[in-house]
Structure formats: C-alpha cells, structure tokens
C-alpha cells in the first residue's frame, strides 16, 4: 500500500544506511547464559568500562564501552510494560573498530528471558521473527529501535516505572559482555534516542 513508507522502515531497521546481517534462530535454541555466566559477564563488563572505581556497579544512565574492540552502546532504553510482564530493548550499537563484531544475545538479572528479534513486513503486515545474532560490521552503527531490530525481555521480575534504570548485558562475539543501564521510557518516548 505504501511502498515508500516500507522502504523507509527497512532503512531505519537496518540503521546507518548499511546492510546488517542477521542470524535467524534455528531449532528454538536459546542463547541465555547461566546465572554464573551473567555474574561473570557483569564483572567483565565493569572492568571493560575502564572505570577507576573497582567493585562498584556502573552508574545508572551511563552507557557502556569496550575500548579495545571499539563497540559502544548508547541511547539505551526499555519500554515501560503496558499490561504485561514484557518489555522491549532499544539502543544504538556503534562499532568504531576495524573488525566486525556480532551481538550474540542479551541478559538481565531482572528478566526471565531476553532474546533478539526483528520486525518483518510481508504484504504490508507486520510480524516478528527471532534472531540468533545481529551483525555489527566494522565502522558502522546498528539501531535497535521500534519497528526494526530489537531485544525482547520477558518475565520481568517486578513492575518497572518510567525513569527506572535496568541493567542489561549485551554479549558480543569479540568485545565480550557489556553491561549498560537502560532507562525505562514511556511508550510515546520510545522512538528515538532523545
């Protein structure tokens, strides 16, 4: 019905005018780590941030960066859950490095399950498909945003209020785990990074 609109949508979904590879989930395999792995991931992420503080938690609202691999995550936000225990995760992932990286999955101590998804359009109808991974090519950025690539969080441990900060760990193939604090946004404010 509106071809131009759909093209614009795809472009947004891909982010930064670049083709973004993705890996569709096969055989229902999930990529969640065990609790121990999450704890280790958080510890690694904290040290990867290069903060002078040790042992403390990353400051709420701060964005994470793993300098060596050149992956930075900004505009981190999650959707205030409407009438369910589900939420969505959005962010901008920038790879300033010379090597391509891959987002392998998400984890959070505050959700039972976190997975990667992509909104898809077929004959004007919107659907969703699970992804096994999301490519983050060298010298590019990838948008996780409403209507495109995004993370899905299921089984929230408690009710989240607008303005709360939620820790989410992104697992990269090369940059490793990276914990960021996602701000809970009102659905009307979920679109952009502002």
């Amino acid at each position, binding site marked *: *019905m*509106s071809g*131009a*609109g*759909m093209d*614009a*949508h795809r472009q*947004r979904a891909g982010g930064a005018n670049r083709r973004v590879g993705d890996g569709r989930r096969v055989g229902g395999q999930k990529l969640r780590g065990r609790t121990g792995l999450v704890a280790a991931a958080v510890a690694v992420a904290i040290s990867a941030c290069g903060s002078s503080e040790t042992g403390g938690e990353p400051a709420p609202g701060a964005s994470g960066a793993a300098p060596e691999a050149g992956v930075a995550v900004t505009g981190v936000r999650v*959707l205030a859950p*409407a*009438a*369910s225990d*589900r*939420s*969505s995760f959005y962010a901008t992932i920038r790879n300033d490095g010379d090597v391509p990286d891959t987002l392998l999955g998400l984890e959070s101590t505050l959700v039972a399950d976190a997975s990667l998804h992509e*909104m898809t*359009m*077929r*004959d*004007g*109808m*919107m*659907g*969703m498909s699970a992804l096994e991974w999301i490519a983050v090519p060298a010298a590019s950025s990838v948008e996780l*945003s*409403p*209507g495109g690539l*995004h993370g*899905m969080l*299921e089984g929230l441990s408690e009710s989240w209020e607008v303005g709360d900060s939620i820790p989410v760990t992104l697992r990269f193939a090369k940059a490793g785990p990276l914990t960021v604090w996602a701000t809970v946004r*009102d*659905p*009307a404010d*979920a*679109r*952009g990074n502002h």
Partner: protein
Amino acid sequence: MKKLTLCAVVLAILTNACIPTETNPLDTAARSMTAAMFGEPRPMPARTLVDQNGDPFDLRIDTQDQLTLLFFGYTSCPDICPITMATVARAMGMLEPSLRERVEVLFVTLDANRDGVDEVKAWLGGIDSTFIGVTGSQEELEGVLADFGYVMPPFEIPTEGFYEVPHPAEVFLFTPERLARFGYMPNTPPEAIAADLAILAEVWWPTEGGE
C-alpha cells in the same frame, strides 16, 4: 529568431501542462503534511463490530463527518501497538480543543481470542479512554481487514504462552468521506501527526481568516 519563437511556444505549453490553473485543496494540503498519501484511497469497511462498552459500532456510519485515525493491532502486542497508540494519544493532546472534537481514534483488534470487550476497554483506559476500541469474532475482524485490502497471514495460537498476531504497521488517516487517504509508519513523531490534522481540518472546516 524562428527557433527562439518555437522555443517560447514549447516552453509555454510545457509550463501550462505542468502547473494546473486549479489545484485540489487536498493535494495542496498533502504537500505540507508528513503523512504518506496513498495513490488510491481505501474506503472504510462497511461492517459493524462491538465497541469497548459493548455497543455496536458501525465503522462507516459512526465515523462520518470527522477525521479518523485507525490502527489495527492487539492488546497483548509488546511494543509497536502501545508505542503507536501512546504516540497518537500524545498527538491528540497537542490539538486545539475544537479540532480534537473533530478527530476520532479507532483501534480495531485482530485478536478475538484474547481481546474481548473488557480487555479492549482496560487497555484503552491506560492509553486514552476517549479512544474507541472495537472487537468481534476472528472471522469478523479478519473480514474488516480483508475489506480494507489486507490478507491476514496464518498465525498459530498455542495452548499456553504468548503469541504474536500480524497486523498492518500503519496508522490510517481517514478524511470525512471515510476514505483512508494517508498513512503513518511507526516512528512518526506526535508533533507531525498533530500538525497534519490541523492542516487537513483546514480543508474541510476552514477557520475564518484562514487560507
């Protein structure tokens, strides 16, 4: 010199062909709007569903003489539906009261299995209780969608747990003749929707001193 005259004549013809002497006010309005204008407007399906208060709602009769924003979705929808509806609600809050009265927001669920009258009412209550939400049997709902030119792809309803329901991405904007002439993709800012409605209202209900 002859060549120059010929050029002038050709130019005059071309100019005349390119700039019509009378422009359609709707096309003029559309040029300053953010919404995508559909090449072929689609009529509102002539069907009756049930609104969130349990009353019958005739999609064609009950949406005449107004601007209508229509969104197909489902209340369990994790992100696009709440984002879209919250964005539309914010746009409504930006309208002048006199314009707000001329705009109706209509939500048509495509999930008869989970969205009864009470579920639609509760969901809209958390967004904007002045919005109208309608439901019906799955057959009726997909009938509305089909009348509107969309085919519902098959989707599975599991015995337990969450499932998704396919739905069109756009918010459709109907003019008072109940024709969907415009659409908004997700990620349209509420300011743009509010501005568009003001431009469009001027076509049907010109204010004094307006153009």
